[in-house]
């Protein structure tokens, strides 16, 4: 009985792990695909799938044969003991010696490529050129597969990276600061209208920001804030404040009352209590929201698109533009996507615990 149970348990465990590993592989493969692609030369990317960098069996060219002029390419063609029509040769014919003959190009070439199916090891021709290409804003000259010299301006993702930092860092700290003040006010100070104001904040938690884009853009055009960092900080502050205030309020209002009362008795002012007591005590909540907001801003596309546009473009805008303008240049798009992902991934993996706490506390973000 006990033994039977143990076996069932083991089978169960096996299947549980099997299903999870399967899901995880499905989850990871797309990312691995672009990571590998971003290091491959552009000619290779367009010729073969990224998975060919791993050891695999492939038809490798070993020889080229040019058929003599006497062979009629419009009739049956005989080579290596096989006779077939042009179309069949074009698709490739298995020869008796284990090699395969494939017609190269159109009929006039009269060329057969003789290839053999053999193992190919790991690809070694990986390159950092794609990254160099997307990061700089300088002109780059290189030779393409046909030997033509191509000159073009880099995509300046390096600059976009800096812009994203300039948007995200103040865009994270400013709302936190403002929200912390407000949360303290709502939690511990008495004033008329406190209840109504806070109810409105709760209502604003899930208001879609689309509702604000047109009116705010009108204001910005009037104020000359359109396309400026100040404008986008304010916008992100406005859109992030309800959640920030709500989260920090929940945290700050749960701090022990005695702590604050004893501070008041010692004669501390509200401002000192806030800066010397509340802020240091709220660090975990502040950190949770900070990570949340930082990732949100770094990854934001819509707000940056509307308020910054292509002046001071952020990484998301730069990558999206690349997709629009050079939709087949996978060597650029994959490298650019990775550049845009690297910082949030580091922040996320390093500070996951805080992030999760923030998620738990406010799973109603608008």
């Amino acid at each position: 009985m006990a033994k039977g149970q143990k076996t069932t348990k083991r089978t169960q465990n096996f299947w549980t792990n099997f299903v999870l590993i399967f899901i995880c592989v499905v989850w990871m493969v797309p990312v691995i695909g672009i990571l590998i692609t971003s290091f491959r030369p552009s000619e290779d990317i367009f010729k073969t799938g990224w998975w060919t960098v791993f050891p695999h069996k492939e038809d490798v060219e070993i020889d080229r044969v040019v058929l003599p002029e006497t062979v009629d390419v419009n009739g049956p063609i005989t080579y290596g003991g096989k006779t077939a029509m042009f179309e069949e040769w074009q698709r490739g014919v298995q020869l008796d010696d284990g090699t395969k003959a494939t017609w190269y190009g159109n009929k006039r070439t009269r060329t057969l490529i003789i290839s053999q199916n053999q193992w190919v090891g790991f690809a070694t021709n990986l390159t950092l050129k794609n990254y160099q290409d997307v990061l700089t804003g300088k002109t780059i000259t290189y030779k393409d597969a046909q030997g033509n010299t191509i000159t073009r301006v880099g995509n300046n993702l390096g600059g976009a990276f800096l812009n994203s930092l300039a948007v995200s860092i103040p865009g994270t700290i400013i709302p936190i600061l403002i929200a912390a003040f407000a949360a303290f006010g709502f939690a511990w100070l008495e004033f008329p209208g406190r209840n109504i104001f806070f109810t409105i904040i709760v209502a604003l938690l899930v208001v879609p920001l689309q509702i604000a884009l047109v009116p705010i853009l009108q204001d910005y055009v009037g104020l000359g804030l359109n396309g400026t960092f100040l404008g986008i900080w304010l916008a992100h502050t406005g859109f992030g404040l309800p959640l920030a205030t709500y989260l920090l309020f929940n945290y700050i209002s749960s701090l022990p009352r005695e702590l604050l009362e004893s501070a008041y008795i010692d004669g501390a002012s509200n401002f000192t209590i806030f800066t010397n007591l509340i802020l240091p005590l709220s660090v975990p909540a502040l950190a949770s929201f900070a990570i949340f907001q930082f990732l949100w801003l770094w990854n934001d596309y819509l707000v940056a698109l509307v308020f910054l546009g292509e002046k001071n473009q952020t990484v998301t805008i730069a990558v999206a533009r690349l997709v629009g303008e050079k939709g087949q240049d996978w060597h650029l798009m994959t490298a650019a996507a990775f550049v845009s992902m690297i910082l949030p991934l580091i922040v996320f993996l390093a500070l996951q615990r805080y992030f999760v706490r923030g998620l738990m506390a406010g799973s109603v973000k608008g």
Partner: protein
Amino acid sequence: MNLAKTNAPSPNNNNVFAKIIDWFGSTLGKIFVSIFVPAVTFIVLWQGYLFLSKANAPQILQVIVAIVWGVGGVALLYLVTNWLVMKLPPKAARTLQPFVFVGPAVAIMAWFLAIPVVRSLIASFRNALGTEWVGLDNYVYAFTNPRMLETFRNNALWMVFGTSFSVGLGLLIAFLADRTKAEVVYKSIIFTPMAISFVGAGVIWKFVYTYKGTGVGIQEIGLLNAIVTALGGTPQPWLNIPPWNNFFLIIIMIWLQTGYAMVILSSAIKGVPAELLEAARIDGATETRAFFNIIIPYIKGTLLTVTTTIVIFSLKTFDIVRVMTGGNYGTNVIANEFYLQSFTYNDAGKASAIAIVLLLLVTPVIVNNIRSFNEQRKGF
């Protein structure tokens, strides 16, 4: 009669007047400083703003100045305002100080969210340029135009399939991973896409779906087409085939959101008392029965919250569609139509009406949030 009485100089009034003069005199210096300090603050901030809006300095320098100026500026504003308020007589200071704390937040939220609701509502009854009233025309468009109907259908697909798969898969993974040793590894892998932007995810999946066309000697470089070819099928331009392309876009959302559902649900599952499960097992309940009869009812609340959050997310989906198809080939969604109307066709009226439609769609959630908040904090 009344007026005359008030204006009549009485000894009592004189006294008050004298007191005010007195107070003015004693604080004249302070007031001077009180004007001087904010003025200096303002000038410093203004100079920073001018530098940032016109500077030709190296970008890195601009960014550093931007960060210092932005963050320092806000801190400075609070310091100065608080300092000013504390200069007032104690009673006035006590009344005003809460507003120093909550005022900026309330003002910014009013400017960026609360007032725009009203402004968009007004704009939704006006024409493209906002010059004339057009009655319900924009709403007629929003609810009857074929373009809009298509977006409603697609958003419904996103909502139903995106949400159910994200929540379902998240729940499955949370439940399964809970009973393995490598739980952390599995969960991290599923969760990590949350750190990736929708634009980045768009590139990742666009590459999975990419299509080279059919012809001799062409090797598909997109993963999906390579798999299809390997299984003997014909490669397809997946993103161009309506209505199925919607599902290929929804997969991206599932890929991004399952981690979120999983993390929240996982912690809820861990909150199910072990004794409860133990008791069920002793009574001979299978794992499946324990899952449906104990775990699901226990985490019902969390399940509802997660579902709501993902439903809201799916209603507002924009970036994925924008980057992948631009809303073409029958994949348009409400938020993208909003974007097109406001920034491509410059029709503020229609755009506002669409934004209001989005707001209406999330209204039940807003009402529910307020209700549960009020219940939570009866003694607020």
